[in-house]
Structure formats: structure tokens, C-alpha cells
């Protein structure tokens, strides 16, 4: 491989990481929510409304970080509506989430109208990390081109994984999504915890929205982040509700998007609009393959040991109590 080729490969991958960073926040947020047993289907609307709110708050105060805080608060409030409807009123989480997805998208278009294509503040670009950026291969790829949000994304993934699998709080989080009755019997307040984790997840989705409008897709326009919320929901399933695999899914989607822009410049005859849809379609195809049992049937032709290892690598079951309200009595 020549220096130029490896250079462009590096550019593709670094772009992929940047493309994927807002999704990492959204996907980890949804993973936390779903691990606690609640589906927040409003992601599409939450991300869009928070992208608008984050942009406007940052523009008005001329401070990007105020934008992120505002977006996180709105994200948490939308999640609070989901939590109230789902946990306290025991209504269909799908119905409430879906209505909020549409409502918040339209709200972002309506209230954000005066801010369409207005210049605004953005997160400072390119923030190489001293020392780490000099590690061969890994340095230039992960620690040289990114800005501060890219690194915050790495930290979030590691923190979520550590919390889930290495702390007592994480054990409880998984318990209230798998066996809420048992967790309740052990003295945990299932309802309060579900509220808390749903709102934390919503806040992360809000940050994802602001990450789009203040950084990776800077600015605000009508339906600015269309599609990303639905994709985030799909990636969580693809990642089997495990933060590391979910993050891998998000970065994989980033690679698809990044490749699409390369293919596009190589084959200018194909319509550009195809490439904006293609990664979404591919992602769903992968999801179909990994979550159906057709793959299992194919695996039956493999030797037993290989099959078992393969199954462990690709298989994941949703939290047992996902989407079901908890009956305390």
C-alpha cells in the first residue's frame, strides 16, 4: 500500500468516526433506557428537536456548551413524558414514543423556522491529544483528527460498559430490565430507577442532537437530522444491548456513510440521493440477518464448536422485561 492510499484510507476511517459520534451518544442513551426495561421510541424526534434547541441556545448565548446543556435538558424532559406514560400510566410505550417522534420533529420545524441556515457557533475543530496521537496507526486514527466530542464519545462507551458490567449500580440497572420483581424484592425502587435511567438516556439523545447541529452537521435546517433517530434504535438491537457492540454498530454505520461519499465521487453517474439512503438500507439488512433465526438454520451446517463460538459472538436477547410496565403489587 502506498503512502497516499493509506492516507486516504485513514481519512475515510477518521471521517467515519466523526460521522458516527452523534450516533454513539444517541445509541448509548437508548441502550441505557432499554436495559432498564423501557423503550424510548421518540429518538427520531428527540434528536431533531434537541438539535434545534441546542443550536438556538448556543446562538443566543454565543456559547456552544450552553447549547449542549439545553439539549440535554429537553432530551430528558421528552424522556420524562415517555416514562410517565409508560411506567406510571402503563400505556403502550411504542404508541407514546412514536407520537413524540412525530410531534417533536414537527415542533423542531415550527419553532426552529427563524433559525434555518443561520450561521451559529460550532465546537472548536481538531483537537489532537498529546502523546496518544503519536502511537503508530492508532494515534493518527483515533486521537489526531477528532475534536473534543469524538473523545467524549470514546469515554462514554467505556464508562457505560464499565458501569453495566463492573459496578453494583450497573448490576441493578440490568436487573430492573430483566427481573424487575426480583430487583424489587431485593429492595430496589424499580419505578424510580426506571424513571432515572430513561431520563439519563433521553439526555444523551439530546446531546446527540446538539452534536449534530453544533458540530458534525453544523447549523439548523428543516428536518436536519432526519433518519438518524430510527437508525439509532436499529443499532441498539444490532448491538445486542451491549455498549461495546452498540458502539461498534454506530461506527460501522459511520464507515458505511463515509464509504458512500467515496463511491459517490468515484461513480458520479449515480444519483447522490441514493447514497444518503443506502447506508440506512444496508444497516437494516444487516439487522434482519443478525436478529432473525435464518442465520441459526444456516449455522446448523457448521461443526458444533464453531457454531457455539459464533452464536455467542452474534447472539443477544433483549432485556426480558423490555417494554413491559412493572406491577408493584
Amino acid at each position: 500500500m502506498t503512502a497516499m492510499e493509506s492516507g486516504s484510507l485513514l481519512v475515510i476511517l477518521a471521517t467515519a468516526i466523526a460521522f458516527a459520534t452523534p450516533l454513539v451518544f444517541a445509541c448509548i442513551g437508548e441502550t441505557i433506557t432499554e436495559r432498564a426495561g423501557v423503550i424510548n421510541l421518540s429518538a427520531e424526534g428527540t434528536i431533531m428537536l434537541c438539535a434545534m434547541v441546542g443550536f438556538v441556545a448556543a446562538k443566543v448565548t454565543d456559547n456552544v456548551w450552553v447549547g449542549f446543556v439545553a439539549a440535554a435538558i429537553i432530551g430528558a424532559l421528552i424522556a420524562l413524558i415517555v416514562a410517565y406514560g409508560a411506567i406510571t400510566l402503563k400505556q403502550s410505550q411504542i404508541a407514546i414514543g412514536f407520537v413524540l417522534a412525530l410531534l417533536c420533529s414537527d415542533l423542531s420545524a415550527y419553532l426552529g423556522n427563524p433559525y434555518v441556515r443561520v450561521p451559529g457557533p460550532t465546537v472548536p475543530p481538531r483537537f489532537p491529544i498529546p502523546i496518544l496521537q503519536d502511537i503508530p496507526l492508532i494515534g493518527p486514527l483515533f486521537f489526531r483528527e477528532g475534536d473534543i466530542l469524538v473523545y467524549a464519545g470514546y469515554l462514554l462507551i467505556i464508562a457505560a460498559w464499565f458501569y453495566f458490567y463492573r459496578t453494583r449500580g450497573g448490576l441493578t440497572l440490568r436487573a430492573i430490565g430483566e427481573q424487575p420483581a426480583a430487583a424489587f424484592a431485593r429492595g430496589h425502587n424499580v419505578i424510580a430507577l426506571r424513571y432515572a435511567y430513561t431520563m439519563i438516556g433521553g439526555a444523551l439523545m439530546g446531546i446527540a442532537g446538539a452534536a449534530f447541529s453544533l458540530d458534525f452537521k453544523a447549523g439548523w435546517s428543516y428536518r436536519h437530522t432526519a433518519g438518524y433517530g430510527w437508525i439509532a434504535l436499529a443499532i441498539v438491537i444490532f448491538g445486542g444491548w451491549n455498549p461495546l457492540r452498540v458502539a461498534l454498530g454506530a461506527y460501522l454505520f459511520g464507515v458505511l456513510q463515509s464509504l458512500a461519499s467515496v463511491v459517490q465521487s468515484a461513480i458520479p453517474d449515480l444519483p447522490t440521493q441514493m447514497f444518503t439512503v443506502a447506508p440506512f438500507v444496508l444497516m437494516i439488512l444487516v439487522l434482519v440477518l443478525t436478529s432473525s433465526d435464518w442465520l441459526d438454520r444456516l449455522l446448523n451446517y457448521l461443526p458444533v464448536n464453531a457454531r457455539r463460538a459464533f452464536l455467542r459472538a452474534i447472539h443477544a436477547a433483549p432485556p426480558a422485561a423490555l417494554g413491559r410496565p412493572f406491577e408493584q403489587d
Partner: protein
Amino acid sequence: MTTPARIAGLPPAFYRVGAFVISLIFIALIVLISGASPVTVIGSMVGGAFGNADQIGRVIATLSPLLLCAAGLVYTFNAGLYNLGVEGQITFGAIAATWLLRVVYPEGATASLLPPPLAIALAIVVGGIGGVLWGLLAGALHVYGRISEIFAGLGLNFAATGIAIYLIFGPWKRPGVASLSGTQPFDESLWLGTFGNTEATPVALGLGLLALAFTIIVMRNTYFGLRLRAVGRNLRAAYVLGVPARRQLLSAFFICGLFAGVAGALQVVGMFHRLIPNISSNLGFLGLLVVMLVNFDPLWILPVAFFFSALNIGSLQLPLSFGLESSLAGVIQGLLVLFALIGHGLAQKYGRKPGE
């Protein structure tokens, strides 16, 4: 959790009406935030929907496919399915109808190979078949692939949009320039007739009303409707009691796909007269909102769908009169449905139970 005694034990209707009033307050607040007066804005929307024959025609033109989608969604909702793939079913129906019209009236030809009324009828039938294919695909993924119908449907929505865009920019592109405005419009002989000079077509309205009437009868008076509800309420119990659950689920996808596909075909022959990228105009998602608001009971679909169509058309006036975004229609629709769901939940949780 404890309930404040003040709000518990009232008649269930109190909570539903209360939630409705709160949704109106929120709508007014949001209009105020955007710097306009709620009364003027609502007045302008009413004027924009019913001001003249053209506008009423547009409301009817929106209502017709919406009725088809909502009627179809009654089956999937009653079977316990969230058919978010309805958008893709509309789109694929529209693609199929466009394909047929391109076959019977090839590019460069001077007349249709079939008599135009027959060509239009065939296009609607083929559109229905296209919708059925897309619906059954989601159904098969759900029933045999054990994939959530929500994600199978959403994925197929993206796929249908992708196919439409590919066709518009690729094989079916306009001679000269391919653009987002869609394929070359069909010859006027292939346009569906309208009420006077309006956009509303009697055929589309008739099909919409027919689908709705059929659905009301099926859900109230047939064994099929009963079995569908049984599957929706408790899949396992229905299966154990001898209801062919898989067949029920697939038939729900079949009927919903059929109605949505016909709606897509009508968008092509009655509304846009060509294939455009957003041919579904989000009518599928709007249909989901309608059916959720009426709590899956088809009897109430007509008034609610009419009201929602009027909101959509009335809001088109907003950018012209006030420089506001027309998505206020979606905000109003969303808030009404959200608070209806919450009101329903409050009535169930706190409402006075019969016999108390």
C-alpha cells in the same frame, strides 16, 4: 405511588376531557412562543382549509388516501401490530402503479396502448398488489423471521424510498434533467377525473369511503374481525384456542398493504400525475396518528381524518400569511394524540371504576 385524593375517583370522562383541554393550552402556548396570536393563526387555518372550492378540494384530496391508510391500519392495530411500514407500502404501491402506466404509455408514444380508463383502473390494481407485496414482506420478516414489525417496517420504508429515488434519477429520469421534482408527468389522458377544477377526485374519495365502510363491517360483524382482535389481545391464548395466529397476522399485513398500495397508486394517478421521492406525503404516519386517536375504532375515523386533513391544508396558509412553518399542523395533531393517550391512561389509573 400514592395518588392525591383530589384527582382520583372522578368519572373517567373527566380525565379525557381534562387532557384534551390541556392539549389545547399547549397548542396555544406553542403558537405564542412563535410570536403569533393563537386566535389569528387558527382563524387563518380555518380560512385556508375552507375558504374556497379549491381549498376544500385539496382537503378532500388529502382525506381520500388518508382514509385508505387509516382503514388498513385498523387491521394491523387490532392484530396488535405497529405497522410503521405503512409509508413504504404507500411508496411501493405508487412505484408499481407508475411502472404500469409507463408500460401502457411508453416514453415517446402518442397515445395509451389501452383505453385510458382501463389503464388507470389497472394502475390502481397493480398499486394495490405492490402494497400487498411490501406489506407481506414486513409480515414475513415479523412472523417467520421473528423481527419486530416496527423495525422491519421502518427498514422497508427506507428501502422503498431508496428504490423510488433510484428510479427517478436512474431508469425513469426525465428526458434531459433528472431532479427531485420527480418523473416526467403522465399524459393528461391518464389523469384521474376531478370534481370541477379542484384537486379532489371522486374515484379516490369513493375508494377511501368504501375501504372505511368495508372495515367497519368487517371489524363489527365478522368472525374474521373477532379473531383478529383475539390475536391482538393475546396471541398465545388465541393460538391455543385454535385461531390460526400466523395466518391472521399475515392477513392483517395483506389488507393494510393493499389499502396503502391503492392509496399510493391514487397519489400517482389522482394527485401528482408522476412519481416523486416523497410520494407518500407522510400520509401513512398521519394514518397511524388517526387510528391511535380513535383508539382503533373505525367508526370515528371519518371525522378525525377529515379534521386532520383540514389541518394539513389549512396550515399551508401559514407561511404566506405569517411567515410561520406549516408544520404547525403536525404539532397540533401530535399534541392531540399524545394527550389523548395520556388522558386514556389517567382515566384507567385514577378514574372511578364501575361499581365504586
